[in-house]
């Protein structure tokens, strides 16, 4: 395709297409700023990306270049424009061959970093899925680098609804919350219906749990008395018993044993507040994976005139010495592009310009492709959040998300399992003990009732919450976004985007609703539109470039969107129902 030149003047230039950068791009473009959004990679979303199986293999190869040269006890400091160093300790294991002929010794597992491609390809295809099939069906996988969920009343869902970006994606409910306890996977009853239906709770426990869940919604004197003391202490003084205490601490509040009470209560309330908006759990997951979400915001930016260019970067900033402001950038093709503001992902900032050169914290991640669910149920198509408390003192709590094929993230007959925790050691050190306890691998071949791991990947990713975004030695109109953090929610990225938007344009609305395409009246061509067949075109277009169609329906919708209420799903226009259909249906 012809290498067209970019325009040379923009209001905002944004480098990196992660979630926060994409949200802010949409926000700027939406209010009329001219946005140039580039990413040096050939794909969207950076460390937030999701890949097909084959795409992931290429990504692993890319990481391999830098990480394979690293020796024990060494650290990598990358210079700008080479890879950021946000990823390290990449290890891949393929067990498909081991599974197909189960008697094989440990020798068949590769302890290296290469998938066992050639060896497993020659395997007879019994019922088990082999490596060749994973590759062949590779495009059915959408494997996220980041594993998060969307709180149904969290800031991301609110923003998607408010801005109408939700129309670009489809969502599914997380169908159950599970926890790992005494060597078993159990379902956590969290909604009222769950509590009553639960078979693992006694009648007394049910009553206690309901009473607790109701009472903790309001702040009481008693709760205040525990301020600063561990939530665990508060819970145990409620005489709830071991079962309930475990559920409440690890699966509902999702905090550690020494989290202070006020924090524990706050997250318990947030969980309960999100329950029931769309279903029986507080969480949604986007069909095709989380990597879709940044792209959806990019589309919104483009729809409002933002210009997109992948495989393109910014090599220098031109800074006015007097004002210490960035006046222009030089792109990777040597073109000068002037801009009033420059937004950049942290990993592009050269080390010598940073306050702290390397990320201070890492997240440990594992991705498994398995052959069955960790907890069988009537439905094969469950999407589960599994909380795994520390398996021994000093170990991190692990969060696990198990996705089924109907989320369009894995091929039929498989499950995609994401494990995440704060790094203590390498991802393999942190997570493989959990994997061998809960799954069947060559190291845990006697666990015959557990799902078998067909393929797995371990890696560490820089924790965005441990990354400094301020205080760098940079011009005043350059804004830095950190990469993804290790938390479950998207709160941080959305807040970052909003705060930078407000800093730059304090008087503008952040992501106001985009007009519904059915409500737009086109002008400018009134002369030519006399033959307009559609009843909509009958209305003469006045003034501005677009207008809401008059009439009750249009007006009502706008009001509802403003409030971002759920009514929108029921009463909004046809399109809106479709957008949120997955969620809407499940709300029944």
């Amino acid at each position, binding site marked *: 395709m012809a290498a067209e030149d970019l325009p040379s003047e923009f209001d905002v230039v944004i480098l990196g297409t992660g979630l926060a950068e994409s949200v802010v791009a949409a926000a700027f473009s939406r209010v009329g700023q001219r946005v140039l959004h580039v990413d040096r990679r050939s794909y969207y979303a950076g460390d937030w990306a999701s890949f097909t199986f084959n795409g992931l293999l290429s990504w692993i190869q890319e990481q391999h270049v830098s990480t394979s040269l690293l020796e024990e006890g060494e650290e990598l400091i990358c210079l700008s424009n080479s890879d950021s160093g946000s990823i390290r300790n990449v290890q891949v294991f393929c067990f498909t061959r081991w599974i197909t002929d189960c008697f094989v010794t440990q020798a068949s597992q590769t302890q290296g970093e290469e998938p066992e491609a050639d060896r497993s390809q020659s395997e007879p295809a019994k019922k088990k899925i082999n490596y060749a099939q994973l590759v062949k069906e590779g495009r059915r996988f959408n494997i996220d680098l980041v594993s998060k969920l969307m709180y149904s009343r969290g800031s991301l869902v609110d923003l998607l609804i408010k801005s109408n970006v939700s129309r670009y994606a489809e969502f599914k409910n997380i169908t159950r919350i599970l926890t790992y306890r005494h060597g078993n996977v159990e379902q956590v009853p969290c909604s009222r219906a769950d509590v009553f239906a639960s078979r693992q709770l006694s009648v007394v426990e049910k009553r206690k749990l309901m009473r607790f869940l109701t009472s903790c919604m309001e702040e009481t004197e008693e709760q205040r008395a525990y301020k600063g003391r561990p939530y665990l202490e508060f819970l145990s003084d409620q005489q709830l018993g071991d079962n309930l205490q475990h559920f409440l601490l690890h699966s509902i509040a999702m905090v550690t044993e020494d989290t202070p009470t006020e924090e524990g209560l706050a997250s318990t309330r947030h969980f309960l507040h999100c329950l029931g908006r769309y279903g029986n759990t507080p969480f949604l997951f986007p069909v095709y994976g989380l990597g879709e979400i940044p792209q959806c915001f990019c589309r919104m930016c483009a729809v409002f005139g933002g210009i*997109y260019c992948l495989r393109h970067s910014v090599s220098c900033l031109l800074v006015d010495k007097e004002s210490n402001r960035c006046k222009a950038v030089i792109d990777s093709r040597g073109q000068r592009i002037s801009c009033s503001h420059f937004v950049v992902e942290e990993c592009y900032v050269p080390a010598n310009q940073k306050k702290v050169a390397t990320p201070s914290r890492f997240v440990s991640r594992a991705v498994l492709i398995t052959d069955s669910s960790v907890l069988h149920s009537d439905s094969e198509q469950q999407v589960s959040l599994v909380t795994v408390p520390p398996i021994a003192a000093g170990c991190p709590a692990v969060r696990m998300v198990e996705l089924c094929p109907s989320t369009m993230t894995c091929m039929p007959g498989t499950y995609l399992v994401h494990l995440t925790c704060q790094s203590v050691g390498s991802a393999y050190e942190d997570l493989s003990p959990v994997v061998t306890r809960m799954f069947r691998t060559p190291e845990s071949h006697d666990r015959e009732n557990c799902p078998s791991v067909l393929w797995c990947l371990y890696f560490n990713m820089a924790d965005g919450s441990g990354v400094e975004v301020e205080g760098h030695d940079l011009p005043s109109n350059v804004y830095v976004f950190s990469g993804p953090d290790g938390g479950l929610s998207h709160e941080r990225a959305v807040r970052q985007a909003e705060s930078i938007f407000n800093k730059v344009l304090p008087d503008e609305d952040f992501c106001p609703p985009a007009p519904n395409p059915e409500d737009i009246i086109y002008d400018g061509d009134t002369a030519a539109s006399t033959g307009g067949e559609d009843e909509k075109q009958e209305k003469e277009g006045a003034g501005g470039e677009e207008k809401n169609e008059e009439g009750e329906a249009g007006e009502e919708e706008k009001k509802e969107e403003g409030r971002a209420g759920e009514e929108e799903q029921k009463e909004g226009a046809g399109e809106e129902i479709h957008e949120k259909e*997955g969620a809407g249906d499940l709300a029944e």
Partner: protein
Amino acid sequence: MSMEDYDYLFKIVLIGNAGVGKTCLVRRFTQGLFPPGQGATIGVDFMIKTVEIKGEKVKLQIWDTAGQERFRSITQSYYRSANALILTYDITCEDSFRCLPEWLREIEQYANNQVVTILVGNKIDLAEKREVLRQRAEDFAVAQSMLYLETSAKESDNVEKLFLDLACELIREAKQNKLDNSDTAPMPGEGKTISYLSCCSLN
């Protein structure tokens, strides 16, 4: 404005090089306009037109690239859940034809397996400037098992036909799918934006 009085709702997505006339095709079909007012494309996500085919109301939701094709930066999510793709090139521009394999690779990667693809050679009003022979394009379309049509958004040649043919094909497939109930089809009412099965269940 009642939105739900249709029997089918299909998402149609346009792709192809910049400048081949994608937006013109959509605007010609949905509004009968040519050339489209450039200003008004800002903020327009997709266009809608409801057509009637054999007594059935079919609502077509037609999505344009929002300019992201200019630097080959279309989001994958753009292809998701499209029922049909209109792959467009300009018959007066050899380069736009030569890029088709690249577009097909993207389709293969990101679009639904069952997506209906039609190849469209636009700008036949500029016959004297033609660079791509009809036969060549037809052969290419056959080899890639696509439908093929030549259009002029300017003269409105074959534009109606393009969208109506697609609608017919989509209805046929939808009916077939219902019969087959194939396991590759999405689960009814689950996370599918525009699913055949949900059209009727809308309130």
